[in-house]
């Protein structure tokens, strides 16, 4: 079975600037995949290359087995991309626009049922006859997503679909996208919200300066890169023995990084022996943000 996306040795230069420095990535059909990285890591460049909006300096990309350059018509038919910016055609209403979009891909009236399903799935039914220009920001975002889905592509790329979107829409959107994923569509997602990637995606790639620096299942990434955190408020000083585990120290509050759960036992016994009482204790699961910060970021603000 052809991979949903197969990226081989992709580089992309803009003059002197090297936006992508040798990216290899294979995403299987039916995956729910997250592409994360700080601004400027090369995610959007990679997506634009997938979509044929840019041409690579070297390397090749196949979508469902079709090369995006030599067999671009089949490659593009297999791909639906939701752009980051809120772009729209001011001349038409939502339903017209979606039918046009499907038409560009060769779909005629036989596809109208699917268009209506997308409209309903994204909560656009009331707005189907509203001009795109008159939609609110959130509704425009839904229409944008609908437009990318109009031709029922097997591979769907969502480039920060939830940026500036309210909670209700976010939940509705993910429910719909998850349903599509269960029906066999491959989903590739970039997002600012790491907890979204963590809950939704089976696999994650993290990019930094034009390269993929981590690629694994979400679970394995969490396990291998992130420790569990033990937050303690102590009645005395932290025993010297525990200082190698120390991650943060703020007065009596300390945060210890544990590589596995069994270490809790050890920490408690050391404290007991040293006679330091525990005022408060909290064990936290590591999250993708920790992994992210560890792998790609020294910077404060996290941007996926």
């Amino acid at each position, binding site marked *: 079975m052809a991979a949903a996306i197969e990226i081989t040795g992709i580089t992309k230069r803009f003059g002197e600037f090297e936006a992508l420095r040798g990216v290899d990535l294979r995403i299987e059909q039916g995956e729910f995949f997250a592409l994360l990285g700080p601004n400027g890591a090369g995610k959007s460049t990679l997506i634009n290359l997938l979509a*044929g909006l840019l041409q690579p300096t070297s390397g090749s990309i196949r979508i469902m087995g079709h090369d995006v350059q030599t067999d*671009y018509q089949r490659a593009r038919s297999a*791909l639906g991309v939701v752009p980051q910016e809120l*772009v729209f*055609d*001011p*001349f038409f209403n939502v339903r017209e626009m979606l039918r046009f979009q499907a*038409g560009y891909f*060769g779909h*005629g009236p036989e596809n109208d049922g699917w268009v209506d399903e997308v409209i309903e799935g994204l909560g656009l039914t009331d707005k189907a006859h509203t001009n795109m220009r008159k939609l609110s920001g959130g509704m425009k975002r839904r229409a944008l997503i609908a437009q990318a889905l109009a031709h029922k592509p097997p591979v769907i790329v969502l480039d920060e679909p939830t940026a500036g979107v309210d909670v209700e829409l976010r939940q509705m959107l993910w429910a719909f996208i998850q349903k599509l994923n269960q029906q066999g569509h491959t989903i590739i997602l970039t997002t600012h919200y790491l907890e979204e990637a963590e809950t939704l995606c089976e696999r994650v790639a993290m990019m930094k300066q034009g390269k993929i620096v981590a690629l694994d299942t979400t679970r394995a990434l969490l396990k291998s890169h992130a420790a569990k955190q033990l937050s303690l408020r102590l009645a005395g000083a932290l025993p010297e023995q525990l200082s190698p585990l120390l991650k943060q120290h703020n007065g009596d509050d300390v945060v210890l990084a544990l590589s596995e759960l069994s270490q809790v036992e050890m920490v408690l016994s050391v404290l007991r022996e040293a006679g330091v009482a525990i005022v408060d204790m909290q064990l936290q699961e590591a999250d993708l943000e920790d992994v992210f910060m560890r792998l790609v970021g020294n910077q404060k603000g996290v941007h996926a």
Partner: protein
Amino acid sequence: MKWLSPFFWLDDKVSPRWRGVYTLFKKELLRFWRVAFQTIASPILTALLYLLIFSHVLESHVKVYDQVSYTAFLVPGLMMMSLLQNAFANSSSSLIQSKVMGNIVFLLLTPINTLEFFVAFLAASMIRGLLVGLSIYLVALCFVSVPTVYPGWIFAFALLGSALLGTFGIIAGIWADKFDQMAAFQNFVIMPLTFLSGVFYSIHSLPPFWQAVSQLNPFFYMIDGFRYGFFGHGDVSPWLSLAVVGSFLLALAWLCLKMLKSGYKLRS
């Protein structure tokens, strides 16, 4: 817009292979039709105002060809001028608008190839140009009788002229990054070339130097050939005009397809 649906009787019949280009053509057609006041009615009104004012002022002063009144002489010129300007405006404004709004991305993501892209934009532009030209003719007939000696030439130059300017519009639309640049293109290139091409006069009335200059203007040949179709008279042979206009069209179409194929300013 329900009443328009009979015009789209092909909707159910187009095969998937041709549906992309058909849909883009249909969308482009509806785009200008939605704002028909601006895209059809207003150029017709402008042309009629020219006709009324110039004919009122000049009818008794200017004699261009024997047995052709100045008002009648003016009609084909105004038709062609409006046809050319509107064919240009259609493709150029559609493209610059989608570029500035950003929604052109939804077109670039599709399997529509460069030739289909070209044909769809061109055909819609030609239809707008021809529609405006034809409407001006029909309205002008209420005021003045205009002969049609060689309908074949009229038709040929109307098609070629609208195709040439439709193509020019696509090129300008791809090239321009801002509305400002597009307006400059329209006002500093298209307008002078049309106004100085003999819309309002026969170039035989000009001094020899300006006659020679006019003959370097491709727009002159479109209007002269078109007018030949109406009156059987022209400043130059219609065959020469056909050759010049045809060559320009081929050259521009080649350039336009080359730009589209390379992804110039669209996929870079």
